[in-house]
């Protein structure tokens, strides 16, 4: 190991002056194929819809109006708040939040358990927990649907054992969606918590125990505050993709668990065919996500400064 110690590595400036050349491809690709499209999408959300899909280049606030305000069937009533889409967004936030809590409740003990194994078993356990993440998300979601549907193996097993006498009716419920989201993003929760716990200095636990704290008091007053950055990072990593998820709500949820992802998809691929409205919904989703990330980034820099 002696040969590796970085020894301060004060200034990595070996290729100083080459940064523009080296970063040019990144700027071109992400700039042209993400930054420009997002800007274009923002513009589209202010354009007039074309009924066959697409837009007419006329500026209007109609998409946002449709999202937030109800003007009656023929658009001639005094505007009141339109709850349909706000409800869908609220449900998405709620579902994503519950999935995040579920991930946290399962993810923390799992990450803790893994991080306290010896080095060799740790890699094995990490592999065990991350392998499903490498399996295609669609296939995982389909597998979940297959498992929990009313005629599926889960219900068959429970009926056979006599635990239940009729199918659980899990499929097409909010719970199924939460389960699907949990299943999709659990590794995102486990890995950052694991990284935080691995760095945790167990002398802190010993110090707390020496000062008369019992096991659960140590967890509450010492461990959780110390590994909090890992917990927060995990929650962000689960919450953000859950919010805009499409596959889990689409395949596992019913009409009552319609989420943002499906709402937007319907505007472009489905029957609704309202591009400006879809763009506006996407803008609102992106705004929410950016606010979450900004608040997170701010708290990070504050913590780093403290």
């Amino acid at each position, binding site marked *: *190991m002696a040969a*590796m*110690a970085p*020894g301060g590595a004060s*200034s*990595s400036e*070996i*290729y*100083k002056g*080459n*940064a523009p050349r*080296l*970063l040019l*491809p*990144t*700027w071109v*690709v*992400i*700039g042209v194929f*993400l930054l420009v*499209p*997002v800007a*274009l*999408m923002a513009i589209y959300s202010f354009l007039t819809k074309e009924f066959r899909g*697409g837009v007419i280049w006329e500026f209007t606030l109609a998409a946002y109006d449709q999202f937030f305000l109800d003007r009656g069937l023929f658009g001639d009533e005094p505007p009141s708040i339109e709850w349909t889409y706000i409800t869908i967004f609220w449900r998405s936030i709620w579902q994503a939040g519950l999935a995040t809590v579920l991930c946290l409740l*399962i*993810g923390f*003990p*799992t990450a*803790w*358990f893994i991080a306290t194994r010896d080095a060799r078993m740790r890699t094995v*356990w990490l*592999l065990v927990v991350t392998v*499903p993440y*490498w*399996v*295609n998300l*669609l*296939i995982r979601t*389909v597998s979940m649907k*297959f*498992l929990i549907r009313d005629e*599926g*193996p889960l219900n068959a097993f429970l009926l056979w054992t006599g635990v239940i006498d009729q199918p659980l009716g899990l499929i097409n419920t909010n719970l199924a969606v939460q389960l699907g989201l949990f*299943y999709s993003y*659990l590794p995102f929760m486990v890995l950052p918590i694991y990284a935080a716990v691995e760095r945790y200095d*167990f002398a802190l636990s*010993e110090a707390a125990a020496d000062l008369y704290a019992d*096991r659960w008091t140590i967890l509450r007053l010492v461990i959780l505050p110390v590994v909090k950055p890992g917990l927060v990072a995990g929650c962000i990593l689960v919450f*953000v*993709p859950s*919010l*805009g998820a499409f*596959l889990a709500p689409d395949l596992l949820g019913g009409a009552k668990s319609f989420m943002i992802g499906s709402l*937007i*998809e319907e505007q*472009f691929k489905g029957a609704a065919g309202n591009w400006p409205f879809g763009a506006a919904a*996407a803008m609102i989703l*992106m705004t929410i*996500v950016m606010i979450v990330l900004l608040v997170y980034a701010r708290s990070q820099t504050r913590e780093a400064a403290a």
Partner: protein
Amino acid sequence: MRQLDLRRFPGFFAVTMLCVVVLYAPLMVVAVYSFNASSSITLWGGFSLDWYADVFTGPEAPKFRVAAMNSLIIAVLAGCGATIIATAAAVAMHRAGRFRGKTASFALINLPLMVPEVVTAVASLIFFTAIGFSGGVGTILLAHLTFCIPFAYLPIAARMQSIPDAYEQAAMDLYATPWEAFRLVLLPLMMPGIFSGFLLAFIISLDDFLITNFVKGAGVETLPTAIFGAVKQGIKPNIMAISTLMLGVSVVFVTLSWLIGRSGQRDKA
């Protein structure tokens, strides 16, 4: 040691086991049912490989074969492209000192991770439609290349950060030009990171459904969109066989990347 092990919390092992069961039960059930002789997806009719035969020779075989080829070609090209772009970016971010626009560049590299997938999908669809580009596989490839960059960047940058620049300084002290120092010293040392970066980008590309579904031209399918289309009409046993095959491919890839990562660590020792 037995009386008070502060690393141990009662119930944590049980939760971990629950976690593992939840993660693996659906995949295992599907894998088992893919060997079902019965065409019913509910009843067990004995072991058979019929559905695997169906995947390769059945009526839907040509459709899935084309979709699989598309997926593979896109994943290889997008993976390679993203790996090269990310390697150059990592060198700039970790070996070029401070420069104007560094923070902005870092944000840009990570932008595809921060923008929700469905938003990227919508924006890409609008963009490709607006410029009148509906190249089928071409649009998918460009979209994949874009969102694969941060995934390739993560392991490459992590690896590069762990390589002290003393190695390149030593090379240049021994009369290597900057390009030789990169080619003969930095690049070989980065190789495990570059492999992991490529594998991650490759898997992510193979995994994508939502963005592909938005930007794909009419009639062009990748494996996930083809499976999604089929699932919409009900889960059939041949889908379970395909899923199991893809599960196998994923396991092979994880093992591969794990082994490469381990050899990288051995290099360091």
